[in-house]
């Protein structure tokens, strides 16, 4: 009986078609925009677009891992402000060295992740609530530390990270590309990566297979925090300052991209390729609407619609998958 099932129906194909629909959506958007406005295809615009996409993308890589283990991190938004200010403060007043400051800031982000994960795993508090709390705490603390004033950077050359380019490719895009390769490797070739899918797919079965689920969650939250902090550093570099108000609503943008990319909120299902497509679609959407002089209010509406439609399609797809599964069983 099972021998014949596979021939009729391959789950793998479905994943491919799902991503195909995202690819088509992206292509349609790009083609229509290049027809509607000549500015779209200019190097300057594409550079800006990709830079913006990379900033969302780096944080989305972390969020992707967190959503894959069926958790969520809302604190990544206010972490943008905290880590940005932390970085500039380190550069100005403490280390006065770019690399040491960068590493310290990423560690800072990782520690925020550790804090979140500890509350989630040891305190057994749902990660939505936990990070809703830490989000507010981080925001408040940043305001207290900075007295709600932005910190201007004095370190010469810091802006290169966010605004410079190598062989015409913006530095953030290069960083994002390298990190994509790393996360791809992590998810597909390492023990941790495979454990992430297992924990997200069935946490009980994972524990009963002898996996240290809490440890895996802690590591994933720390990676998410570190990547969030790196994003913050790049944003701070673009502005050449640490802004205590940076990153408002950023967490929703990041999570939107992850969901749009087909990562299941219940965990265990989703691919890196999908997330990259999700990031690009949202970036092209907002870029295009700006170019077309659509008011920013409408941009929000458009983004909302895109997310709901995408998740709706995903639900439909899941239902049809279940149906076919049942049919093939009976």
């Amino acid at each position, binding site marked *: 009986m099972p021998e014949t099932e596979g021939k009729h129906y391959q789950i793998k194909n479905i994943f491919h078609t799902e991503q195909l629909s995202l690819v088509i959506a992206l292509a349609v958007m790009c083609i229509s925009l290049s027809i509607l406005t000549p500015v779209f295809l200019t190097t300057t615009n594409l550079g800006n677009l990709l830079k913006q996409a990379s900033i969302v993308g780096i944080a989305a890589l972390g969020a992707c891992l967190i959503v894959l283990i069926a958790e969520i991190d809302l604190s990544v938004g206010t972490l943008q402000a905290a880590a940005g200010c932390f970085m500039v403060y380190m550069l100005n007043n403490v280390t006065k060295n770019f690399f040491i400051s960068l590493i310290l800031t990423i560690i800072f982000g990782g520690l925020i992740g550790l804090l979140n994960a500890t509350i989630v795993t040891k305190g057994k508090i749902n990660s939505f609530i936990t990070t809703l709390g830490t989000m507010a705490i981080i925001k408040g603390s940043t305001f207290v530390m900075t007295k709600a004033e932005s910190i201007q950077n004095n370190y010469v050359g810091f802006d290169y990270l966010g605004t410079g380019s190598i062989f015409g490719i913006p530095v953030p895009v290069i960083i994002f590309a390298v990190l994509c390769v790393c996360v791809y490797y992590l998810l597909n070739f390492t023990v941790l990566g*495979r454990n992430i899918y297992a924990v997200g797919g069935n946490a009980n079965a994972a524990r009963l297979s002898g996996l240290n689920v809490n440890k895996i969650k802690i590591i994933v939250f720390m990676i998410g925090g570190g990547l969030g902090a790196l994003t913050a550093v790049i944003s701070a570099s673009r502005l050449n300052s640490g802004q205590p108000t940076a990153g408002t609503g950023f967490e929703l943008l990041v999570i939107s991209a992850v969901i749009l990319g087909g990562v299941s909120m219940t965990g265990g299902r989703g691919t890196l390729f999908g997330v990259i497509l999700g990031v690009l679609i949202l970036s092209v959407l907002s870029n295009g609407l700006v170019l077309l002089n659509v008011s920013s209010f409408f941009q929000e509406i458009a983004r909302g619609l895109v997310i709901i439609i995408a998740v709706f399609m995903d639900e439909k797809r899941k239902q049809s998958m279940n149906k076919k599964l049942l049919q*093939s*069983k009976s």
Partner: protein
Amino acid sequence: MDSIIEVKNIHKRFPGVYALRDISFDLLPGEVHALMGENGAGKSTLIKILAGVYDFEGEYLFEGKKVDFKKPIEAIEKGISVIYQELNLCLNLSIEENIYFNRLPINKRGAVDWKTLHIKTREVLQEVGFDVDPKIKVGQLSTAQQQLVEIAKAVSCNARVIIMDEPTSALSPKEIDNLFVIIQKLKNKGVGILYVSHKLDEIISISDRVTVFRDGQKIGTDLTKNMSIDRLISMMVGRVVEDMYPKNPPVFGDNVLEVDDLQNDKLKNISFYVRKGEIVGFSGLMGAGRTELAKAIFGFDDRKKGTVKIEGKIIKPHATWEAKSRGIGYVPEDRKNEGIFGLLSVNKNITIACESENAFWGHIFRKKLNSKVEKIVNSLQVKTPSLDQLVEKLSGGNQQKVVLGRWLIKENIKVLIIDEPTRGIDVGAKTEIYTILDKLAHEGMAIIIMSSELPEILSMCDRIYVMKEGRISGEFLREEATQEKLLEKSII
């Protein structure tokens, strides 16, 4: 007297399993008809067919007329109420709201008419002899009281038939007496009661007729007064098909696993040992604590007190990864929720517990691992079109082999705990699983089988512990164990 419910030649198939085979059955008004059988005999399947949950092949007559319920609500409207073992109540709502859940009385303004609701609820509660304020939240009631609420709900629907699935499993002797008084009242009103249980003494005392199921087939129906406990047991158990259970003479080594005075919320003073090459069985009724014991040994559940030792060395509690690295493997009872990763492939399901041993700095040597997986899949004869097949799509027996394979692929496994090794698996695959277990024991593995199927325990195990209410209530050697002895220790 005409029967309220009659089914004729019913068949029900699930993927890979024949759940009911040619069942004919009837229920008269004003009788208590007991339905007996071991776990997996098909009792629950019949209940669900009667309640309109499952579709089926065959004929279903209600008061002489053919019916075909598409949804449970259609059966309820006809007057068929089921009180499941897991009660279906909203603990956060009051008694009255629970009873009149989907038909709250409404006043002229369209709001809930609380006064009428209150009066109606009081009447119904009086009928079942339950004196309580209907405004109390159901969550504050004891299990027995919640059950009364369920019965009251059935009465309020003018139920012609009430099906009770293991109604006494969570009740004290006094509460059981009380329940029997209510059953008697319902009987006098002409309600037909289908009483599903495997507690022999209860059935003898409350029922008018008994039907016994075994392996999805009806063994027989007779008046209870013609029945004895011995006859019921022999009907339930039947003859053992000898060659279904391959068993070679065992060779025992030293103690591998020693459990000493293990305790937690569900377990009391559990001490036992397993030797190298030995298959040890844990028998007992549902809820006796077998699964809890398995999970406590594996470190999934807390251990309050006591020690678990592998080859003389203590394993720390609450760390499944420690149990794994020290050589314990666990195949859970609830395959779907605790065993398999439905979204992952056969390959990944098998390798999940051994990846770190086949990796260097986190990088998995996939080629090396794949060849090991292929070897395991071949030796266990897992029927799958490819290793990339989603495990969800395999049959129950093949899924079970995949979960077994997850532990067998590891070289260091010394103790394998298998909870209900053949639940939901068809007969052919059962024998295959038994053959594998017997072979493993011969190669020196210590095997623990938790099972509610007596023939399985009796035929496969070298030594048998019986559990009852979280304790070990008896220990038997293979030679001295009989079905009757095991049942006796698990019931009395």
